């Protein structure tokens, strides 16, 4: 296999606080190949957005990468700062945020924002940059792009704004795109449009996409592989169909079973007792053991096995390997 576009190894993010050192991301490893969509799921506080921000260098102080390696096509990027980081970000990595209204500058037209990004990263003339900006808007499905290029963000609807954000993330032809909850603020019909657009762009351009979301349905339809995070650690990693239909980690199994699914028609939903522990009160051993039915003394004493990027499925001492469907 060729070099993956993004390769993350044993990534640790730390936040020093008065209560002690918190680790919102603790030893996470994964790869994303060209043209692949990796779906990262987890509940709020699982560390999925923090992982995305660490990769693209957007951690707010005092959060910092304490250990581990992030490689973009083989080049280590975890220690880049200032100008060197700025040249990579936007050019080689694009980011799509959840709320399209706050991620665009309200005082600049869409065209100004696109041409600024294009000219920053590509050596092209002003008119060439404008043509590229129009082409970028056309590619993401904005009708009458030539007229709309001089509009301000507030003149677009929510779905159209998210298309502009996607155009902005892709206009310098990056190799990696990190999409953090790109459809959470959108209605279902618009969400379907945006997901179809992301899939098409990923396929046509061979961009690697890290799709961070809490919506299992979105992941099931869009992603090739899925990474399930829990309390800062990778709980399960594998092909999307396998993980959803035959989860190995008890947390993944609980998550799937508690999602209401139309075809099941059950009277009560399965529920996972309790809630995810807070980072300043992580239990000893496996972080999931207080909520796990199968927990033993080993789970209470030792943290689960660390999941490597290329082998193993679940970070659990007792993975559910029997081929039982998750529809129980």
């Amino acid at each position, binding site marked *: 296999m060729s070099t993956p576009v993004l390769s993350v190894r044993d990534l640790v993010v730390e936040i020093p606080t008065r209560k002690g050192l918190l680790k919102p991301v603790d030893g996470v490893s994964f790869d994303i190949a060209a043209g692949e969509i990796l779906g990262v799921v987890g509940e*709020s506080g699982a560390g999925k957005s923090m992982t995305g921000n660490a990769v693209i260098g957007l951690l707010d102080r005092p959060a910092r990468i304490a250990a581990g390696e992030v490689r973009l096509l083989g080049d280590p990027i975890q220690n880049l700062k200032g100008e060197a980081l700025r040249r990579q970000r936007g050019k080689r990595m694009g980011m799509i945020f959840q709320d399209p209204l706050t991620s665009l500058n309200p005082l600049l037209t869409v065209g100004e924002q696109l041409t600024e990004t294009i000219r920053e990263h590509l050596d092209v003339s002003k008119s060439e940059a404008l043509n590229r900006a129009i082409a970028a808007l056309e590619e993401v499905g904005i009708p009458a792009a030539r007229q709309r290029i001089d509009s301000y963000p507030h003149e677009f609807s929510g779905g159209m704004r998210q298309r502009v954000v996607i155009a902005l993330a892709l206009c310098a032809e990056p190799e990696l795109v990190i999409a953090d909850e790109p459809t959470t603020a959108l209605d*279902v*019909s618009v969400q*379907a449009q945006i997901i*179809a657009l992301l899939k098409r762009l990923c396929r046509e351009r061979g961009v690697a996409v890290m799709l961070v979301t809490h919506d299992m349905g979105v992941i099931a*339809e869009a992603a090739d592989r899925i990474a399930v995070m829990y309390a800062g650690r990778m709980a399960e990693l594998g092909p999307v*169909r396998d993980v959803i239909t035959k989860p190995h980690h008890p947390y993944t199994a609980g998550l799937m079973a508690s999602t209401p699914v139309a075809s099941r028609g059950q009277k009560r939903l399965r529920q996972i007792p309790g809630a995810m522990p807070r980072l300043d009160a992580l239990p000893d051993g496996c972080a999931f053991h207080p909520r796990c039915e199968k927990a033993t003394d080993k789970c209470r004493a030792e943290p689960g096995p660390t999941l490597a990027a290329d082998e193993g499925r679940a970070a659990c001492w007792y993975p559910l390997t029997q081929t039982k469907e998750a529809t129980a």
Partner: protein
Amino acid sequence: MSTLIRVEALTRIFDVSKPWLNRVLERLPKAKLTAVSDVSFEIEENSVYALVGESGSGKSTIGKMITGLVPPTKGRIEVNGKDISSDPDSAEAAKVRADIQMIFQDPYASLNPRWKVRNIIAEPVAVRGGKTGGLAERMLEQVGLSGADADKYPHEFSGGQRQRICIARALASGPKIIVCDEPTSALDVSVQSQVLNLMSDLREELGLTYLFISHDLTVVQHMADKIGVLYLGTLVEEAPRDALFSDPKHPYTQMIFDAAPRMDAFGREVDPPKGEIPDAINPPTGCPYHPRCPIAVDRCSQEKPLLRHIGDTRVACHLAE
């Protein structure tokens, strides 16, 4: 089963005009936004009636009108046969409204951070002069928290626990009807299932009736007995759950069912729906859905379809059969 809530020709128009000075200077007319247009439905006792629709469809406005937070522009709301919309300040309407409580979407914004949980839960009873001794503890235990939590503040609880406190507050005055406006959309899935199960249990124990407002079709399918689909302030389809999900009649209902992401549809290539919800200030003529509708004919752009019965379903489409 008897009808508990009857809503007739409910309409709400918001004035979204610019300030009068701008209107004079720029010669602009008054702008009106019809959030809810001529909506009628009935909710049976001890059932769950769900309203679904995308943003701007008017589902929350209907919930607010039933709880009395927003007065209707036109139409009637009857609870147990008593009209509460024509004179909302009358003593009789206030008495009926004591039977209606609401659960809001965001459990972080809907609890006063400076109040102890005890006071938050007792408030709906205290404001009507009821006895509140031991009430908070009883309510907390009913929703699966501990009585000792009554002396804590909201920030000491997680999102799911806060939503339980909101449910406890809604139950404190012993209501018959609870309006739930997106009660679980701010919660994680594993917590959402806890809250939905709690709501199902309480409905059985206390004989509650829910008006359940949501955009999440899987949650609605799990909870609701009867579902009304709203588009641009209009009720386009209403049917019992199984009829709606097995045989949606309105093209808009079919579109949202197709567009909703599904957990069993790996790598599904959807042909995404065209267009977006039109501007509610200048809605399309005729059927509000006709500009996006794949089967629209000339008649759809001229004549607004009325709800008509097909079996158990009521649908507002000229072409549905």
